């Protein structure tokens, strides 16, 4: 019987984290917000001097063009810090999802081989996916160009059909690839082939899951805007503030911004919680789905044995992928095994599932 997963269990995973580990979510949110503020605050000196107001468009643009080259160099160089914070939050959320009954002094945050593997998978995935989509689009453009000289109507029809085909294909590819990072984290090895094999026959369910995640994130964003807006508006009027008479550059708003520091700091709490939740939403459902599929059924982690009960290990031969990794890690850089307390979920990685061994792992 083909393994499957429960969308309900998968989509419940981030809500479960929100309910059981709100502090961890706050920490992940603060971490990413701090990184973003740290990096993008570099732009403040440039933005503060931008002339605003009627008739200043050209001057603002000139000013922006002049400064943006210099500033973007710094910001671009530091932007990976934001990605790093998101990566740490993602793996922490994944770890928390896999250990539903356990607390963690570091909010499940680690820096180790799990993070490296997930980063490598996502960068390779990003480059590969974009390259394939780009090349496919180029071929389509060439096809349209070739037909255009013969029949323009046919060329338009072909381009539209081809474009739709590319969209469907790109989405399909995205969904087939989306379990590679979760599976790599769970099995503690690169799982390109295993993640690919696991998503076979699950594309529609994964599409449903991703659509559901998207809808939920929109609803939550609207809620966040309402809450943050309410805090800021209440702060503004509660403090008896008024909008400055003349604003020629954003720098003229700095005195007002200073007075709004306290409401701003209060607004950071729901913002961080949302950010942490958004990270949990991007990680937990995929991790939960991958875990269910690896287990060969619909058992969700929330019903898996807790830390006190050793998790089930396959009585059959050990998983060659995991064995290979353990052998490799014997003389390897520190993995999360080295820095993290024993995670009961780790032991369930060898599930005896019949998915093929990653061809990259053994040859």
């Amino acid at each position: 019987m083909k393994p499957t997963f429960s969308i309900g269990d998968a989509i419940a995973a981030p809500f479960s984290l929100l309910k059981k580990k709100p502090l961890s979510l706050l920490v992940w949110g603060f971490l990413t917000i701090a990184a973003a503020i740290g990096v993008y605050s570099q732009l403040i000196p440039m933005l503060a001097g931008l002339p605003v107001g009627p008739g200043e468009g050209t001057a603002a643009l000139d000013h922006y063009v002049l400064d943006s080259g210099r500033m973007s160099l710094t910001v671009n160089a530091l932007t990976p810090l934001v990605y790093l914070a998101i990566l740490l939050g993602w793996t922490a959320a994944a770890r928390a999802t896999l250990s539903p009954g356990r607390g963690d002094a570091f909010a499940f945050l680690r820096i180790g081989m799990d993070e490296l593997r997930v980063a490598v998978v996502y960068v390779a995935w990003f480059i590969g996916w974009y390259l394939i989509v780009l090349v496919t689009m180029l071929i389509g453009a060439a096809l349209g160009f070739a037909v255009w000289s013969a029949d323009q109507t046919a060329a338009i029809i072909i381009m539209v059909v081809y474009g739709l085909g590319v969209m469907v294909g790109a989405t399909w590819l995205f969904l087939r690839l989306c379990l590679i990072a979760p599976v790599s984290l769970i099995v503690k090895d690169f799982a390109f082939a295993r993640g690919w094999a696991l998503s076979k026959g699950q594309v529609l369910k994964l599409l449903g899951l991703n659509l559901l995640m998207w809808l939920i994130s929109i609803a939550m964003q609207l809620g966040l805007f309402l809450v943050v807006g309410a805090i800021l508006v209440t702060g503004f009027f509660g403090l008896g503030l008024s909008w400055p008479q003349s604003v020629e550059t954003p720098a003229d708003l700095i005195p007002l911004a200073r007075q709004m520091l306290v409401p701003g700091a209060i607004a950071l709490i729901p913002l961080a919680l949302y950010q942490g939740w958004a990270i949990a939403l991007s990680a937990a459902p995929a991790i939960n789905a991958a875990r269910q599929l690896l287990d060969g059924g619909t058992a969700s982690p929330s019903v898996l044995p807790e830390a006190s009960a050793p998790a089930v290990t396959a009585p059959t031969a050990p998983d060659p992928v995991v064995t290979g990794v353990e052998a490799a890690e014997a003389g390897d850089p520190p993995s999360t095994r080295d820095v993290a307390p024993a995670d009961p979920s780790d032991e369930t990685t060898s599930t005896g599932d019949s998915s093929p061994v990653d061809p990259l792992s053994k040859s």
Partner: protein
Amino acid sequence: MTFSATDAAFEGFRIVRSNPMAVVFWAVAYILFFAVFFAAFGGSLASLMATTEGLEGTQPSQQDLAGLGQAYIGFLGVALPLGLILGAVLNAAVARAVLKPGDKRFGSLRLGGDELRVLAVSVTLAIVIGVAALVLFAVVAVAAGVAAQTSQGLAVIVGILLGLASVVALIWISIRLSLAVPLTVAEKRIAPFASFALTRGKTLPLLGMAVIAGVMYILVSMLGTIIALPVTMATGGGMAQLAEFDGQSTQQILQVAGPGLIAWGVVNAVFSALQLAVLQAPFSAAYRDLKGLARD
């Protein structure tokens, strides 16, 4: 013979952990290269950078471009042979660090027969792959040109499809030849094409290993950029400040910008050494595992 591509991909990190001094020695080699190059051409480099900066945002004349091209060719004339020698020494050191981990002296850096053989093999392979690229893309251009007689669109399709096929073919050749350096060091012979037999049936795992190593190389590079930025900003701007010293001698430049250049050189050397380990060591590990050699 068990070769795990994902295991081999991490060989660079394994070296860094088990033999951190090797990275220090490799970084020192980079620093020496930079120092020698700068001592010889610091002043000219500043003039070249100033000229390049001066041309930014302008419409350079043919004469400007010709002058700039000549200056670059002059630098390349010196930097290329020096770089090839440094590359051979460092690539041989990485291979030795993986294949003979017990011999850790000087970070496995040597200057002898192995290095000469690696140099010969590297140059041979660079020429072979360069010629292969030239031939393949010439075929693509001719085929696209012939197709253009019928239709411009057909020419674009032919160009894209054959271009892609050529890129795939070049990647395939590069992967099949990728174990040449460790093979040269291990077997002490110049056999640039012996790697072909060794990699038969292993192209996909080796490609996967190379992709993983390449991505880790990018990640290390990003980390290097993040760390280098505050260091260079705090010490004056690194190489970017050189253009300000147009017309001054190397000694005059060092008196003013010495700390910044040294900081830039050290940070870049350390990260270049790390990137070297991350990118090159996996191929030596693949050779070791495919040959069934002991890990010591």
